[in-house]
């Protein structure tokens, strides 16, 4: 199983979970059908023309109906965003396999999960709506609720206990580590350049190679650069996790982010940055580190609020080996690789586990707050939206590309606050993809259907799709795709003793052949050929011989023969071996050699020889061996 991501866009259909009771949210009107039937008004609330489910938010899981997850042996994780559904899969499906991921992926993935669980668990909500999920009722609802897929499989968040149990099933791996799976295939993670510890995977046998490229980046940010060379010679390259915003240039977006931030703060407003606790935030903090002095923002406090803020900042400093070269060199000095250490030391950046406690006493405005969750449905960000939403001095800047910012904002409308959309997605865009594919030259490309056509909103942009030869094979949800290669060979080892005994003969220039008769030993999917055992000496007369012992095993086949028999030479050979009275007759296809005395007849044709004789085994064997002299064995 490749990756185990969680679709969190489902939460956009729910009302935000406020930390403290919000009068605005709790006073939203219930929603009723056109005919005035209001039986759903407890579950559904209306806000500025949009309908939201008033319940604990739920997540859309990966497809679990199609396959029996207990038959999955291995899950490969490509980065910490792609493992958020792991507890659902490993804990309740009968899954007993192993999960492979790099150490930063696991550590940061744990932080993301911890934050998520914490956000949801700290505001217990009594209500759990389920009525609206009824298929007949869902039909009657307005979009987007009406069109939401698989709502019956949506689940509430997992618990920390489930997270711990899921994470304990992960086996840590390093880049370029070759991991043998059951002796049949080898998997190897490669740096993908997108996030700390993010990986692409190579799945290969001795003769076939499949590359799984997911969430890769060619831009120089903090992680180790992408390893492209190792992707070469792939039979199939599975490509996914491209940028969600192919038209936005990340560098430009960072610039816009900084200037908007500065503008707001200079005018006395506050800036809210909804974000994940790890990833792009490290790059943003680094940009701000370089930017704040020149922009005259040195006195503006930066707050990073998350239950895992401290851990995230600390963890980022200890993964030297997973960082880009520049940052690695800093560690050798030894200095912390990320400048946010200095921001913290100089008190410019402060971090808090939540709004409660120290933060409320330190809080100064105007300020910049980084906090989650980017969906705006739970976490401390909900509080800041409610707090700052009414003033046009304030700005919310969206940097995470996972959620549509308009949908995220919908339950907060009407809103006076400024909204800036600066999505920073460093993953591959289509220009980079075509460059990559040219470089790596896979025989076949497999990708989600969306990438093979321009985005629906920009159907004229033919440049916003994957362009390769042969055309990429596409797949969609719950579709089975056969990969276009046929396995023809497998590796086998010939023991040195057997190899020594082989007699190669040159058939054509440069091509030699040797017939092999050997005992096949197969263990753990590894095949070894050993020399055949020596025929055992008949063991004295003590044991009574059973008749069946003599019967040859029909499965022991003699080699095939090839070549042809030159009649004249054959006759000469026969004479040399004491046969006389030999007569040769020509036939349509060849010759017949008659040994009149022995009442034996040998039909010789181009591709066949037939010896017809009386039941005289000695004679037959003599003739057989003479014929074999002219033929090659295979």
């Amino acid at each position: 199983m490749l990756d185990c991501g969680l679709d969190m866009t489902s939460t956009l259909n729910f009302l935000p979970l406020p930390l403290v009771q919000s009068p605005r949210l709790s006073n939203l009107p219930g929603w009723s059908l056109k005919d005035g039937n209001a039986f759903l008004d407890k579950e559904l609330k209306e806000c500025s023309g949009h309908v939201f489910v008033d319940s604990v938010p739920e997540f859309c899981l990966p497809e679990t109906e199609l396959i029996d997850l207990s038959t999955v042996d291995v899950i490969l994780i490509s980065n910490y965003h792609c493992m958020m559904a792991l507890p659902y899969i490993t804990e309740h499906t009968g899954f007993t396999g192993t999960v492979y991921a790099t150490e930063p992926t696991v550590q940061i993935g744990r932080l993301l999960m911890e934050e998520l669980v914490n956000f949801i668990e700290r505001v217990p909500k009594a209500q759990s709506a389920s009525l609206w999920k009824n298929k007949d009722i869902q039909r009657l609802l307005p979009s987007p609720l009406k069109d939401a897929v698989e709502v019956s499989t949506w689940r509430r968040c997992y618990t920390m206990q489930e997270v711990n149990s899921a994470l304990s099933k992960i086996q840590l791996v390093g880049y370029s580590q070759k991991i043998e799976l059951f002796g049949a295939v080898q998997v190897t993670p490669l740096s993908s350049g997108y996030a700390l510890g993010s990986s692409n995977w190579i799945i290969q046998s001795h003769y076939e190679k499949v590359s799984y490229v997911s969430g890769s980046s060619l831009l120089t940010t903090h992680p180790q650069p992408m390893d492209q060379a190792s992707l070469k010679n792939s039979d199939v390259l599975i490509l996914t996790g491209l940028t969600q915003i192919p038209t936005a240039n990340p560098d430009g977006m960072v610039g816009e982010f900084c200037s908007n931030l500065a503008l707001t703060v200079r005018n006395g407003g506050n800036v809210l940055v909804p974000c994940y606790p790890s990833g792009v935030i490290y790059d943003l903090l680094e940009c701000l580190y370089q930017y704040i002095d020149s922009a005259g923002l040195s006195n503006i406090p930066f707050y990073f609020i998350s239950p895992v803020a401290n851990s995230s900042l600390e963890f980022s400093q200890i993964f030297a080996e997973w960082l880009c070269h520049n940052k690695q060199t800093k560690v050798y000095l030894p200095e912390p690789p990320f400048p946010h250490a200095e921001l913290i030391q100089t008190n410019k950046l402060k971090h808090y586990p939540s709004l409660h406690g120290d933060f409320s006493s330190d809080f100064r405005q105007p300020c910049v707050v980084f906090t989650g969750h980017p969906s705006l449905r739970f976490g401390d960000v909900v509080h800041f939206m409610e707090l700052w939403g009414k003033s046009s001095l304030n700005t919310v800047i969206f940097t995470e590309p996972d959620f549509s910012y308009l949908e995220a904002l919908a339950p907060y409308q009407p809103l006076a606050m400024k909204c800036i959309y600066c999505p920073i997605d460093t993953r591959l865009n289509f220009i980079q993809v075509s460059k990559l594919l040219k470089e790596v030259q896979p025989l076949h490309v497999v990708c989600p259907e969306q990438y093979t056509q321009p985005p629906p909103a920009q159907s004229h942009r033919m440049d916003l799709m994957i362009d390769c030869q042969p055309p990429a094979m596409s797949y969609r949800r719950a579709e089975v795709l056969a990969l276009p290669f046929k396995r023809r060979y497998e590796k086998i080892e010939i023991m040195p003793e057997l190899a020594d005994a082989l007699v190669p003969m040159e058939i054509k220039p440069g091509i030699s052949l040797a017939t092999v008769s050997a005992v096949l030993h197969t263990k753990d999917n590894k095949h070894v050929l050993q020399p055949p055992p020596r025929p055992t000496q008949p063991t004295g007369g003590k044991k009574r011989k059973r008749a069946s012992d003599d019967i040859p095993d029909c499965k022991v086949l003699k080699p095939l023969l090839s070549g042809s028999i030159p009649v004249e030479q054959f006759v000469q050979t026969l004479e040399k071996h004491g046969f006389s009275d030999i007569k040769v007759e020509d036939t349509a296809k060849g010759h017949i050699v008659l040994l009149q005395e022995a009442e034996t007849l040998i039909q010789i044709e181009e591709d066949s020889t037939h010896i017809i004789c009386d039941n005289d085994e000695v004679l037959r064997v003599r003739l057989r061996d003479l014929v074999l002299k002219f033929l090659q064995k295979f």
Partner: protein
Amino acid sequence: MPEIRVTPLGAGQDVGRSCILVSIAGKNVMLDCGMHMGFNDDRRFPDFSYITRNGRLTDFLDCVIISHFHLDHCGALPYFSEMVGYDGPIYMTHPTQAICPILLEDYRKIAVDKKGEANFFTSQMIKDCMKKVVAVHLHQTVQVDDELEIKAYYAGHVLGAAMFQIKVGSESVVYTGDYNMTPDRHLGAAWIDKCRPNLLITESTYATTIRDSKRCRERDFLKKVHEAVERGGKVLIPVFALGRAQELCILLETFWERMNLKAPIYFSTGLTEKANHYYKLFITWTNQKIRKTFVQRNMFEFKHIKAFDRAFADNPGPMVVFATPGMLHAGQSLQIFRKWAGNEKNMVIMPGYCVQGTVGHKILSGQRKLEMEGRQVLEVKMQVEYMSFSAHADAKGIMQLVGQAEPESVLLVHGEAKKMEFLKQKIEQEFRVNCYMPANGETVTLPTSPSIPVGISLGLLKREMAQGLLPDVKKPRLLHGTLIMKDSNFRLVSSEQALKELGLAEHQLRFTCRVHLHDPRKEQETAVRVYSHLKSVLKDHCVQHLPDGSVTVESILIQAAAHSEDPGTKVLLVSWTYQDEELGSYLTSLLKKGLPQASS
């Protein structure tokens, strides 16, 4: 005959200047490049002229691997690469790459600035040398070239220490460097998978020692330090800046905290803080417990341990000082030792192994009158204590590692000849493998017999596997195929496929034997009798009676015909191809014996 050759240039029946040459499947690898702390002359570096007399080292060596940052494993590196001349890759782990140049610079300073040696490597040379380094991750398979690959395993011992597997095709060697099989206060235990190398080259510093539990040693250490401080004495602990020092600091720090002690603890040289920083940044290389708690409390931030100033040595009252280097062979630790040696209230604790020739080794072997530079004689009155805190595996640990890796043979280095001899016997007895212990310059040659990997056509393999997964011991089944060798591409295919690929036609060789039977009945009845006879004898074979009256056994055809002259005799025509030779031959002889009297 392929073979693996190993020649220690250093550390052969000795501790110090580790440097081992390995030739495996035509590749030459140098393992470690250390200096010897017991010598100040030519003998301190390995004799690189052994590698090649005239040629360039770069042409001869495919790569150099450094196991960890201790100078007896990397001290000769700048001399080797910059002064002798080597431009190929040098592999080491990230922490080793970070810390190694600092220790080299330290070493250089002592040699050049303090002892005034000329013709030593320069700071620039250290930098140039480090540019040739390629950092490796744990468990990463590094492809040195198309055939040679190396892989690092965690070794404990010091921060960033690694064991290395060197592999070419199916042949491999594992070199342990220095390692520790028991986790300590700051590092984890060495670990390797069952990689079954042809040869395991292991250190054997503590070849004969089986150490008591770590806890006892720690308690002992604390008790001694405590007693000395209580009676107002000064305690000197010579250490290397990185490694044991951190472990002992953690130990003393927690003890001071618990006992609420006030005597100052100092750590000499400016390296301390820097060293602790390395531990902080490379925390993923430390043990589980430290890694788990580092966000809440970093074990490498000490409250009680302060930086040492030279002047403090003359302060009155008790104190504990950690000073470098660890074997009292030079530098600050030796200076302090000279100051304090005369007072019996004071104590020196040697927490690690000392190489022959060093002051540390001399006082540990009981010498109390030391001849110092300038013919001065120093009388040692202070208490001398030895505590084995060096993180080497003991005999038990070495045996454990051999058991883990399951090598075909073992080679001992980095130990004393006498002790090695004992361990060698033990390994040979317990694991029934050959064990070698070459001296420096002595070559051990191991013949290997690598199996030959070829591609087998899946069709042939599946056909074979379909016949039963478990091999029958009594009747081993034979796989038949044809090996096609074209250039270096070896493929094993079925004979049919080989013929087809080469565009050759099969030549069918068929035999038809006439077997005369005395049977007055009709041909059809004879055929029936033949059928039932064969059916009863050949229980495991497919015997069929076809509608046209003929009988088949597998693909062998038997037809009954009337004899042209004798109506009381029938002729059986038994016909088979060469591929069925054995069965065909068996059938004719069986039928020749006649049919059993039919009860019909």
